[in-house]
């Protein structure tokens, strides 16, 4: 008693009814995350501009071939770009935004400083690890989940630290009500934790190599359940949380409708998780599962637009401020792009629309409207608002921020329009049949040549956006320099009214007399005290949705029609496949002939002896991971073995320098595959991993122990054929030890693709 009284006296010399707690907010952590945001953002966008320039043909069809190098290959840099902008730029922005807002909404300092720094440095280390491993070709190939298993484990650990710090802060809060932004943050934590763990389930086959426990169609479903919901829980819910905090703050007025924001939250949480299959329309996924994806994607439109309207109407009566305040400018455009993307997404989930847009650059336009527009603008707006606050000063240059706004806007528009143009050209030409029913543009190069200008437009748009980000960095540094960092902000707030201690509640509940039901309800008050519960509520919806999407496939998995002739890859082909994954060929090539005539006619019908060429589920059962891909810069390769096997030596010349076979191709050359000898030292380990639990690929004991010899035998056969085909060819030289080179394994794999269905043995 005496202690409490003296405490109060310290804070309030004069007599006060409400005793205020004095405590401080940790500003250093959000500050550091904010700097990491802009720095990694610039790095990630720079890599994006580099690969956009590659796509214009620089380095392959024109200019010095400097970009045609192992570590600068498109297939290796694209994952670096996507990972950097998603997890480094957006990720750091989310953490900065969450840690700043959370403390203020809960009137409490972050639960644990040490955990916060573990989170900060852990995350930056993971980013550095990604920046090293991805260019080295250490990749799982699963989009936005390319990092190999040791890094995946680190991600899980750091993510748990993030969640623990958030939940710990909620426990010691001084504000009873959890503002809706916090719900969005919690859903982010839970959603990503679940998605990351399930999609990363893999068995290591060495320190930097693993195989997905899921195969083929099932892996595809899990991957896009993850991929779509990574959009939901990494690029949507946390950014909406930021919107619901920073937009009202900057506008100085409450959110238009708090009720609507709650409806927005729950409907997103319930609906998003079901929409994943819209990435797999017209594939071998069961049609009913595809339909579920389409239906839920369309339903998503409603709550998304509810959220957009809610954001924009928050500015009602404050639109004059938008003219003068760059922060609000960024927010307004961000929310507008949210509306645009969440309309376009459902449209692209319609089967007919999807047939045309899927695999084209339209999708790339769509994702950048979301990433540059919705996410990027929200993050920039937040930085322009937060950095001056953290350094207790004003933004150094408003005109400079305005300039950034206009450059970035122009950049996005140029980018998106270019990609829409490219997508429209691709769809028009892929799907065009002449009057007699024959593909009008069978030659892939003829289509590719039409895309040069859109690709140049994209590169210019990206460059504008990147330049804007550099201006932002300069402006923020100048702002920080003119101010004083407020690392610990001391504030006062009334403590949370104490609840009855647990033992008292338990005692009271135990004392209740009556029937079993009465006694049970008495314990309700225990459940009520559980601030954790909100999280769990969100989990239900996530888990129900997730499980429903996966369970039916569980049954399907066992029922996937077995195709007698489908066999596991030979040791050499397996090695070739792993090289395909290392090089990231799937970032330009699909291996999924859809059940559309434009697909089957282009990618194999002529070679199938009368049956249609679309990919059967039963063909992919040994594919770990699946390699269906999502974008066709180059042709589909699922039936490549049938299409090109009658052209001996073609792959050899093509892979060395695509210009030799396909003048004007923007596929990079892979000369290093001709230099490096295949490293088969761990081939046995890889095969026994695949043959072991829980995958049980039917490799015999003998096949595994003789893996290297079997590979050498097949390599000699392939190399022999190549030598024969290329003898006397002046363009290329064939090394004496060709059979040892990686290119032979790669070609063995390419020759195998799609041949199982029609093979005779």
């Amino acid at each position, binding site marked *: 008693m005496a202690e409490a009284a003296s405490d109060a006296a310290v804070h309030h010399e004069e007599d006060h009814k409400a005793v205020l707690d004095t405590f401080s907010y940790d500003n250093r952590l959000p500050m550091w995350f904010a700097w990491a945001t802009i720095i990694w953002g610039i790095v990630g966008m720079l890599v994006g501009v580099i690969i956009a320039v590659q796509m214009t043909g620089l380095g392959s069809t024109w200019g010095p071939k400097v970009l045609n190098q192992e570590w600068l290959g498109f297939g290796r840099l694209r994952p670096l770009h996507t990972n950097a902008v998603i997890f480094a730029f957006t990720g750091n922005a989310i953490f900065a935004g969450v840690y700043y807002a959370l403390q203020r909404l809960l009137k409490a300092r972050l639960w644990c400083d040490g955990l916060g720094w573990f989170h900060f440095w852990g995350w930056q280390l993971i980013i550095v690890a990604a920046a090293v491993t991805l260019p080295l070709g250490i990749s799982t190939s699963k989009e936005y989940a390319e990092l190999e298993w040791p890094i995946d484990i680190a991600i899980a650990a750091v993510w748990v630290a993030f969640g623990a710090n958030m939940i710990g802060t909620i426990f010691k809060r001084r504000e009873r009500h*959890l*503002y809706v932004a916090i719900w969005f943050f919690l859903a982010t934590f839970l959603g990503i934790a679940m998605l990351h763990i399930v999609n990363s389930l893999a068995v290591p086959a060495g320190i930097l190599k693993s195989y997905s426990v899921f195969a083929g169609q099932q892996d595809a479903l899990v991957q896009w359940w993850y991929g779509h919901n990574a959009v939901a829980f990494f690029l949507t819910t946390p950014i909406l949380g930021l919107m619901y905090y920073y937009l009202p703050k900057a506008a100085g007025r409450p959110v238009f409708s708090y009720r609507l924001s709650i409806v927005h939250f729950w409907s997103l949480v319930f609906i998003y998780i079901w929409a994943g299959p819209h990435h797999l329309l017209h594939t071998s996924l069961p049609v009913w599962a595809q339909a579920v994806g389409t239906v839920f994607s369309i339903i998503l439109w409603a709550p998304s637009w509810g959220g957009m309207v809610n954001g924009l109407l928050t500015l009602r009566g404050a639109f004059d401020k938008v003219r003068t305040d760059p922060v609000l400018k960024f927010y307004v455009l961000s929310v507008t792009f949210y509306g645009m993307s969440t309309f376009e997404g459902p449209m692209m989930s319609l089967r007919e629309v999807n047939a045309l847009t899927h695999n084209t650059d339209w999708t790339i336009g769509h994702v950048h409207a979301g990433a540059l527009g919705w996410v990027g603008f929200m993050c920039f707006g937040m930085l322009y608002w937060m950095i001056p606050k953290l350094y207790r000063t004003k933004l150094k240059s408003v005109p400079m921020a305005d300039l950034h706004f206009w450059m970035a806007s122009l950049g996005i528009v140029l980018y998106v329009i270019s990609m829409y143009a490219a997508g429209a050209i691709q769809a028009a030409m892929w799907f065009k049949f002449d009057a007699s029913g024959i593909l009008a543009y069978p030659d892939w190069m003829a289509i590719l040549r039409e895309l040069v200008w859109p690709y140049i437009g994209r590169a210019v748009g990206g460059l504008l956006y990147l330049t804007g980000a550099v201006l932002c960095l300069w402006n923020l540094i100048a702002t920080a320099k003119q101010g004083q960092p407020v690392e610990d902000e001391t504030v006062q707030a009334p403590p949370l009214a104490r609840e009855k201690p647990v033992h008292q509640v338990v005692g009271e509940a135990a004392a209740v007399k009556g029937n079993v039901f009465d006694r049970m309800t008495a314990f309700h008050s225990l459940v009520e005290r559980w601030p954790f519960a909100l999280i769990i509520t969100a989990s239900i919806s996530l888990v129900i949705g997730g499980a429903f999407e996966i369970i039916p496939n569980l049954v399907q998995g066992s029922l996937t029609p077995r195709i007698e002739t489908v066999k596991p890859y030979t040791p050499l082909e397996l090695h070739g496949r792993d090289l395909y994954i290392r090089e990231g060929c799937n970032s330009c090539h699909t291996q999924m002939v859809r059940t559309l005539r434009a697909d089957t006619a282009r990618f194999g019908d002529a070679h199938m002896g009368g049956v249609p060429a679309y990919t059967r589920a039963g063909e992919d059962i040994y594919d770990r991971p699946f390699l269906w891909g999502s974008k066709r810069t180059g042709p589909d390769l699922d039936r490549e073995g049938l299409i090109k096997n009658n052209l001996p030596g073609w792959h050899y010349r093509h892979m060395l320098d695509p210009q030799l076979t396909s003048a004007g191709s923007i596929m990079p050359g892979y000369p290093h595959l001709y230099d490096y000898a295949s490293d088969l030292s761990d081939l046995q380990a890889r095969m026994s991993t695949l043959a072991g639990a829980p995958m049980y690929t039917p490799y015999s004991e003998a096949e595994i122990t003789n893996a290297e010899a079997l590979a050498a035998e097949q390599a000699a056969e392939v190399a022999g054929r190549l030598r024969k085909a290329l003898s006397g060819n002046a363009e290329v030289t064939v090394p004496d030890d060709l059979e040892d080179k990686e290119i032979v394994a790669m070609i063995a794999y390419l020759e195998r693709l799609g041949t199982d269905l029609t093979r005779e043995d």
Partner: protein
Amino acid sequence: MGDAVSIYLLVVAVGLGLFAVAIGGLVWLVRTGQLEDLDTPPLRMLHDDCPATPKESQHG
């Protein structure tokens, strides 16, 4: 193939476990009155905190 199924069963088991706990969560959300006052929270979040400076406590 039956082995891939066991992976799914694991996922389902985890899911159902979470589901059970979650029922309690829903009860909590409603019964603790998190949804009772939806008018003041959006206004209260706009207020900046009172800084604990010496000047401030003189006023108090």
